[in-house]
Each structure stands twice: as structure tokens, then as C-alpha cells.
């Protein structure tokens, strides 16, 4: 080839075509997806928790997308019904994930509604799931000799924390658990409110 413009315009054309096909057309197609009536926007603390979840990179090991039964055992594992685009209308950034080093979390709020379980699991995953390879997040908690007014106390099993101390969930841990508990996608996704977005 000896034409500068052929290479230049060819490069621009191929990548633009791919953008239109992979991004532009689906965007138009999905624009009609309305917000499901059963899905509430994130409350302020849950949204803060979602930001923490993103900043700690939880999504590198936990997907948030349930596949159809023809695509695996997701539903049989109790992870919920297959996800649809409507489930994500409030998600920015999207956290669909590409790994399941840990289980899918699309319905973690349904599957595990206990705050205490989540606190313990974040403080020391192996205290509740001995097989876990998840990192512990002790910096989301404080150990105090005595709880103060307004402290969120975590009920700990014996031996997890030093004798004579109490484990307090910081506001960060509380927000993160608010987010985890808010992940419930068990409504009918096609019963929508209003029209598009």
C-alpha cells in the first residue's frame, strides 16, 4: 500500500463501524428499557457503599449477572433468576464483573439478609466461610474497649477478637453492608414504571 489516506481512513472506518455495531445499535435498542417497578434507586448510604465496593475492587472477584439455566447452574445454586438489562438501569459504573473467584452477588441481599453475617464476613471471611480466599477488611472496623453511644456493635463468635474488646462497624462498613443488602433482583423485571429513561 502506498496511500497514506487509505490506511488512515481505513483505520478510522473499521473502528467506527465496530463502535456503531457493538455500542451504538444496542444503546438504541436498550433505550426503551424502562426502570422495573420492583427496583428502587440506591439509597444514599447504599450508593456510598457501592462506591466503596468499586474502590476496593470487589467486582474483580464477584460478578453481578445471573446466567440463564441453559448457560450453567446459576439459578440451581440459588443465585436468582437470569439478569436482564432492566436490572442495571441505576448502575453507574456497571459492575457486571468477569470473574467468579467468589460467588455471584446479584441477589446477595436476598440470599444473605443478616447484617451480622456480612460484618463478620468482611472483618474475617474465614470466620464464617473456612474455605474462603477473600481478603479480610479489618480497616473497615474498629476495636474498642467499650462501645460508645451510636456505635454499631458486631456480635462476634468467641476467639475472633481479643478478650475484653468490642468490634465496631465503621460508617464505611455500614454503608457497604447497606449496599450488599440492597442487591435484590427478585422482582418481575418487565413490570415497569413510566417509559424509557
Amino acid at each position, binding site marked *: *500500500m*502506498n496511500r*497514506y489516506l487509505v*490506511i*488512515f481512513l*481505513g*483505520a*478510522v472506518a*473499521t*473502528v*467506527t463501524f*465496530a*463502535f456503531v455495531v*457493538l*455500542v451504538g445499535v*444496542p*444503546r438504541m435498542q*436498550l433505550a426503551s428499557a424502562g426502570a422495573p417497578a420492583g427496583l428502587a434507586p440506591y439509597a444514599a448510604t447504599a450508593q456510598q457503599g457501592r462506591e466503596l465496593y*468499586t*474502590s*476496593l*475492587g470487589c467486582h*474483580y*472477584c464477584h*460478578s453481578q*449477572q445471573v*446466567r*440463564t439455566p441453559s448457560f*450453567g*447452574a446459576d439459578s*440451581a445454586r440459588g443465585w436468582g433468576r437470569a*439478569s*436482564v*438489562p432492566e*436490572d*442495571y*438501569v*441505576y*448502575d*453507574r*459504573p*456497571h*459492575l*457486571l*464483573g*468477569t*470473574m*467468579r*473467584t467468589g*460467588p455471584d452477588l446479584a441477589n446477595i441481599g436476598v440470599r444473605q439478609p443478616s447484617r451480622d453475617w456480612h460484618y463478620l464476613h468482611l472483618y*474475617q*471471611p474465614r470466620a464464617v466461610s*473456612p474455605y*474462603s*480466599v*477473600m*481478603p*479480610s*477488611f479489618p*480497616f473497615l472496623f474498629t476495636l474498642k474497649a467499650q462501645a460508645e453511644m451510636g456505635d454499631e456493635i458486631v456480635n462476634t463468635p468467641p476467639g475472633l477478637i481479643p478478650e475484653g474488646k468490642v468490634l465496631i462497624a465503621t460508617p464505611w462498613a455500614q454503608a457497604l453492608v447497606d449496599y450488599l443488602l440492597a442487591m435484590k433482583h427478585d422482582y418481575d423485571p418487565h413490570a415497569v414504571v413510566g417509559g424509557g429513561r
Partner: protein
Amino acid sequence: MASIPLVYADTPPPQIAVSERVEADRSTRRPVLLFFHSAVVWLLVGSVLGLVASLKFQFPDWLTGQAVLTFGRVRAAHLNAVAYGWASMALVGVAVWMIPRLVRAPLHRPVVATAAAAGWNLFLVLGLGAILAGWTDGLEWLEIPYPIDAIVAVAGGLMATSVLVTVARRKTKHFYVSVWYALAALVWFPILFVTANLPVWSGVGQAAVNWWYGHNTLGLWITSLSLAAAYYLIPKVLGRPIRSYWLSLVGFWALAFFYSLNGIHHLIGGPVPTWLVTVSITASVMMVIPVAATAVNFHTTMAGRFGTLRHSPTLAFTVAGAMIYTAVSLQGSVEALRTVNRVTHFTHFTVGHAHLGVYGFASMIAFGAMYFIVPRLVNWEWPRPALIRWHFWLALTGIAIYFVALTIGGWLEGAWMLDPAKPFAAVVDVTRPYLVARSVGGTLMLAAHCVFAYHYWLMVRRRGPERQEPAWSDGRAAG
């Protein structure tokens, strides 16, 4: 088949050709060395981060006292350091060095390219700092926050301008294959990067943009720059033309068309329109065409001359990289099929595949290119050829262990995950020994990089014994 001629009608006589090459190398010396120095530093940083992330699977309570070194941040910092620091800076350095030689015009305003390299480093320092501090856009391959992204957009724009102007002032009529790939890559990357970082995406649509971008960073950026280098180095070291002009043409345009459509195979089985996934699967399978064209072209160019690998570090690394390109690309085509992907998706299998591509293919070619280029920039031969052997075998053994371990472990992980009778604990447990092997492979790769970085440091300081002949050459002409 018509081979690409070594001598064109407008090829200058040898003495002019040599002086033009000297002039070209003089114009690129500063920016290219800055790109290479930076790449070596980012390689070390990225490898340490990668090994820390890997070891965390064996020691999940290690380095958990602060958020800054939690797995999710170290992993993201690793990816950005090796993809945008090491691979991008090394391969852009190679492109900036090659293009003036190939178009017979010195680099236009080298200071612009040097500024681009400096800006690129600033982007990485701020970007990795942001990720570790917890400030992230949250998208794989696009973690660095978009205010910081503006820096690399400017740096990339400067780099592209410098190269595009150089090419516009060419003395050659014809563009060599390497120029097609390098030019296209420098056009593609700014378009991809700026579009994907626009703050207008959300939900499933954002996932589509995310993987349109993510896969094209591999396919249109890192792959194109690596192939540009391989197309230059293999015939150059052999002193023999690329076998087929026609095959290189097919390889280039088929890659441009099909690779750009691959991205959504990262969302197979996900909540996106089925037709969209099918488009990407089809394009992934069609990648067999450019890959086969390139593989046949390289192989027939090498045919009968494989013995040369023992006498040229450049050729050893580059040919290993080119062969792995064929393997990893064909693996990718198969991996995109729904029946295979339902097992491998969400597992370490994908991680093994990604490392075979970026490390076994792109990084090996970048190493090979640096072994060729640096002697020509610092006017000194590699002082310790034995260290190059250590580098080669440690790197190759390391990636082999890494890839085999994650391929087997990832497949088992996926197969067990599909079986609802297996509790999730069993799925985690089945991967354990393979993740230990991954840490072993990663340690060997880090060792390889320490050897390489030490040797590189000797080289650019012109330390060690002064040698008259290229490394491994034993009196032969190969370099």
C-alpha cells in the same frame, strides 16, 4: 506468491541508506530511550504488583491492614502498570524508532515525542496512585479516573501527531507492513480511549463500551504494535524478505475488521442482546483468517532458517512471541464459542489466556525488539550475553507454568461451577494447587525481569565488558 522486495525502485544506494539510518536513529534516540527506560521501570513495578496479587490467594490475610494494598486495588494497579506502562511504552518506543527508518525521514520534532513519553509517565504515576488510593472509574482496563486520562489523551495525541507528520514527510513511495500496523494503532488508540472514557455511559450499555474498548486495547493497540515490530525484526535479522505481500495485506485488513468486533465475547451469557454476543463470537472465529495469514507469512519467511534463533536474541524472543501469537489467537477463537465459554467464563482460564497474549506474545516481541534497538541507540553491545539466556528461559518457563496451571485449574473451576451438586467451597478448593503454581510462574517471570532490568541498566550506562560483536552471534552477522 510475490514476496515483499528488500529493494524497491526508490531504495537508495547502500552508503546513503546507512547514513539515513544513522540520521533516523539520531532523531529518535532521546524519545525512544525515555520510552524504554520508563517501560523497564513499569515492568518491574507491574510484576511486583502482579506477584503480590497472586500470593494473596495463598495468604488472604497478608497486607490487609490498609485499603491501599487490598487485592482489588493491587490487581487493578498491576494491570494498568503492565498494559499502559510496560507494554504500551515499550511498543510505542519500538514504533517511534522504526518509522523514521522505514519512511526514510528523521523523526519530526523529537522533543514532542519526548514530551509525550514524559506525559505518559505522569499519567501512570497519578493513575496508579489514584487506583491504590481508591479513586477509580471502576471499569476493567479503564480504572484510571478520567481527569487523569486527559493527560494520556494529550500525550497520545502528541505522539500520533509526531509520527503522522514524520510519515507525511517520507522519502519512500511505498509503506512497509510495519508502518500500516503502527500508523493504524496510533490512530486507533486515541479514538478508543477518548470514546470509552466519555462520562456518558451507564448500565448494560456501559458494559458494551467497556469491552469494545477493553478487547480493542489488546487487539488494535498492543497486538498491532507487536505485529509491526515482528514484521520489521524477522526479515531484518534474517536478511530475507517477508514471504508474501498479499498475505500481509489480508492479515492487516482482516485484523482491522474482525478484531474490532470481538469485544462482546466478554459478555457471553450476560444480560445483553443475544445478536450482539453472536456478532462478537462470529468475529472472534473469523480472526482465524488474519492469524493464519500472519502465521503462514512468518513461518514461510523463517522456513529453513530456524537455526538462526541460536545466534540472535532478537530473533529468539520475536519468533517465540510470533508463535505464541498464533497459539493464543486460535485459543481465543475457540474460547469464544458458547459451548466452551460457558465453562471458561468467570474463571482463571481467561486470566491464563490474557497472560499468554500480553506476555507470551506481546512482551516477548517487545523484549526482542529492545535487544535489537538499544545497541543501535547507545552504541554499545549487550555486555553479558549469558544474562539474555537467563532472561529468555526464565520468562518462557515462567509463562509456561503460569499458562498451563491456570488453563487446567480454570477449566476445572468452570466445570465444577456448572455442576450444582458441587458446593461453592469445592469450586474454590479445586483451584488452590493451580493458584500456587501461578505464583511460582509469576516468581520466575519477576526473576526474568530483574535479570533484564539489571542488564539493561549495565547497557545504558555502557558498563561491563566492551564487546565487538552482537550477543550470541559467534562471529555471524545476526544481531
